[in-house]
């Protein structure tokens, strides 16, 4: 009887096609695939730029009036080479893994629990790194580069979908109570709301700080 009651409450007859589309496997993996592809392209562009700049420090150092990436400032800062090589190289190495994961999953492959948990761990580190760079670019370096922004956005989306899947499939070895609460959160689409709000906040921050340069 209790189980029946639970089922009844959890069943959302009012949530229609959108709800189902959002929670459909194909949507999740396709979003992750697109985001990781975008991130790979951006990493590639940034890597090429970094190499060009290393070859010839004066290349493109001029300050372009119409771009908010002013003067190669981001590429030239120490934050852009935290580990001794351009950060974008990390994207070149890690994004193909995510792409493979997304494609394989689209094709119906199910990865073992431990694999997904480890992926979650590594991607969380990547997310922290991306936001650290975003924060540095916003407040310390004072210049934004569109490709770096694309990486931040794409990383957010991949992290969101990966976390979603891992909560849904109970891959994270979490205490039962936490797991149940997170599942409820995901089922009510609050996680989606959170991500949308988060991305909009970022857009707002960028517009507030760089609007003058972007739209003047």
């Amino acid at each position: 009887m209790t189980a029946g009651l639970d089922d009844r409450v959890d069943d959302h007859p009012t949530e229609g096609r959108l709800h189902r589309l959002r929670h459909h496997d194909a949507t999740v993996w396709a979003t992750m695939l697109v985001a990781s592809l975008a991130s790979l392209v951006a990493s590639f562009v940034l890597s090429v730029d970094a190499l060009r700049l290393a070859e010839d420090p004066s290349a493109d150092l001029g300050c372009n009036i119409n771009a908010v990436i002013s003067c190669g400032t981001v590429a030239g800062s120490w934050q852009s080479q935290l580990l001794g090589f351009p950060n974008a190289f990390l994207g070149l190495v890690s994004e193909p893994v995510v792409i493979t994961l997304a494609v394989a999953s689209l094709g119906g492959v199910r990865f073992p629990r431990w694999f997904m948990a480890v992926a979650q761990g590594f991607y969380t580190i990547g997310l922290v790194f991306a936001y650290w760079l975003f924060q540095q670019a916003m407040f310390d370096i004072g210049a934004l580069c569109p490709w770096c922004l694309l990486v931040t956005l794409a990383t957010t989306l991949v992290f969101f979908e990966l976390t979603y899947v891992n909560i849904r499939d109970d891959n994270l070895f979490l205490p039962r109570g936490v797991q149940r609460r997170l599942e409820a959160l995901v089922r009510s689409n609050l996680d989606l709301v959170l991500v949308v709000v988060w991305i909009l906040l970022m857009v707002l921050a960028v517009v507030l700080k760089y609007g003058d340069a972007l739209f003047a």
Partner: protein
Amino acid sequence: MNQKARTRTQELRKQQQEAARRQTQRRRLVTALSAVVIVGLLAAIVWAVVDAAGGDDTPGATGDVTPPGNLSSQGSIPVGSDDAAVTVDLYYDYMCPACGAFEAANGEELTGLVEDGTVRVELHPMNFLDPTSNGTDYSTRAANAIATVADAAPGAVWDFHSALYANQPEEGTEGLSDEEIAGIAEDVGVPADVVDRFADRTFEAWVDSMNAAANQDGVTGTPTVLVDGEKFEGDLYSTGPLTEAIEAAAGGR
């Protein structure tokens, strides 16, 4: 017995309905709240974009541009003799690191060429990098200072210009304070009463107009260097190429 069971079933169903109702209510509330937050953020973004797009049209457009005195006929700040063989136009921003690199490579060469009468430099200060000084508008403040010096102590313009680049702040910082700019001016011999006029910000509108004029001249980045009106396409960041181009232009006379 039967009656009792039925009552219990009814009660259970009632509870069930009540729970479902509360659940739906909560979901509606959350949906409404989410919608409000999201719409609010979208509105804020639109407002910020409109504000940014509109905000920059006003300073250059509103009349009241007071140009400094001693400008050349083309409206920029001249350094050197009117009879010089070659004119070199510099479009630059005091915040632009590449302009600093250009000055480091070519400043002394230009000083020599100005002194021996080969070159007249025309300074076109710009302020499009104002957004990169954390709200202090360093580009405009520095350009206003150079305009004030051009107005009242034209002999010190080049030295002050060079000194500003020698002390160039890093992009993305607040830049030099007004006091620091004043100190640099005093160090290169700008009279104290002229330095005091920096604070009047008399020529800020003129700096805006110079920035707009540069855009109209087709300047897309800084530094942009013209030799006798032709854009110099060579290496701006090492000593020599620009000097050679200038000497070639002078020899052609």
